């Protein structure tokens, strides 16, 4: 037993070879501020390039800007949970994560329903298809830009629970992107919103999940190689 508890030479050498001082990571909410900055920048870009939705006056301030703010805030909460899950013993439990994802899904559905109730929006020939691919592509593109920032923050923490962290980060990125794109898209038909906008959120979540799984597989493979020596 005593031999086992002696610091192994291999470990001592590995530590000695890389003992530069490190700065402790800031708390998850503080690190998420870097992601929060993305929201106004992305909103400005969408408004400058695509313009504000045509039914903004009909929807009023809350259903135009307020829902964007709420969706982006919920997305940020998911990002904070993702960053907490990335850190060992970071305090983000699976129960909290499941609750946050459920609230996010409800918020997305509720926003779509409230917006539809306030404005018929643009009439499109086929709500299942018309405008859908463009909305999906642009929301996903926006989401990928913020997901890149989130991924850098998550992987900097050499995540122990990469799958959970990435799942939450992907959902957060999706929600934030959809919140911002809501400022432009004036198709309020629920079929369009749930299929194409909800689909973009799910796609971003799946992309992030795949990245988390790939990280865990790589880490497992490296561990297998070390253990087999």
């Amino acid at each position, binding site marked *: 037993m005593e031999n086992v508890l002696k610091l192994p030479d291999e*470990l001592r050498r590995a530590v000695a070879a890389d003992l530069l001082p490190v700065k402790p990571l800031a708390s998850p909410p503080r690190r998420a501020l870097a992601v929060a900055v993305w929201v106004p920048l992305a909103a400005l870009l969408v408004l400058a390039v695509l313009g504000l939705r045509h039914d903004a006056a009909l929807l009023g301030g809350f259903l135009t800007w307020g829902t964007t703010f709420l969706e982006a805030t919920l997305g940020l909460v998911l990002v904070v949970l993702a960053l907490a899950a990335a850190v*060992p*013993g970071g*305090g983000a439990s699976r129960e*909290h994560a499941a609750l946050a994802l459920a609230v996010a899904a409800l918020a997305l559905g509720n926003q779509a329903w409230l917006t539809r109730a306030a404005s018929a929006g643009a009439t499109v020939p086929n709500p299942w298809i018309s405008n859908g691919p463009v909305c999906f592509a642009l929301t996903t593109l926006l989401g990928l830009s913020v997901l890149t920032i989130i991924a850098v923050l998550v992987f900097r923490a050499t995540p122990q629970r990469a799958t959970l962290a990435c799942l939450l980060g992907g959902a957060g990125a999706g929600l934030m992107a959809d919140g911002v794109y809501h400022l432009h898209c004036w198709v309020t038909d629920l079929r369009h919103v749930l299929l194409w906008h909800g689909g973009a959120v799910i796609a971003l979540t799946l992309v992030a999940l795949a990245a988390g799984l790939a990280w865990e597989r790589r880490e*497992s*493979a490296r*561990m*297998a190689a070390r253990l*087999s020596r």
Partner: protein
Amino acid sequence: MDDAGDQRKRLTELMVAYQAGDAMAFEKLYGELAGPVLGYLRSLTRDAARAEDLLQETFFHVHRARHTFHPERSAKAWIFAIAHNVFLMSHRAASRLSRHEGLAENELPDVPVPPGLEALAARDVLTRALARLPEKQREALLLHHVQGLSFQEVGAVQGVTALAAKLRSHRAMIQLRDLIRGKGR
């Protein structure tokens, strides 16, 4: 300050010194926590040799992830959380190596036994009863009763809420008593 409070303060100081580049602090940290972490890994793996491999692997990960420790958090819970995840990763690694997990009940290594229960039955009876508990419940019980982690810390290690960790430990204790009394056969 009580013993647990003293240890928490000492481990935090060691971690902060280690983050600042002090190799001795790492050695002291290893000296203080290698034993408890090994006991924990033995209870998870039920394989003494594999637990020793994973102990070294855990401290490799501690080194790689040392920047993720925050002095406001418990260093012990942080390291046990790494050990927990190293164990989970080793499941996947083991499948790559085609190694089988765990041992038969009669080959169990000497896993730690909660001190309050030692009066209830012989050590081997307790060890076998512990081995029959569901894995997550056994882990919560041992982290709290043997390693002295609070339920908040156990929850952080297992990635669940403190309440869920407390329930797991409580259920494990009830089941363990039943098994010792022969009700859980």
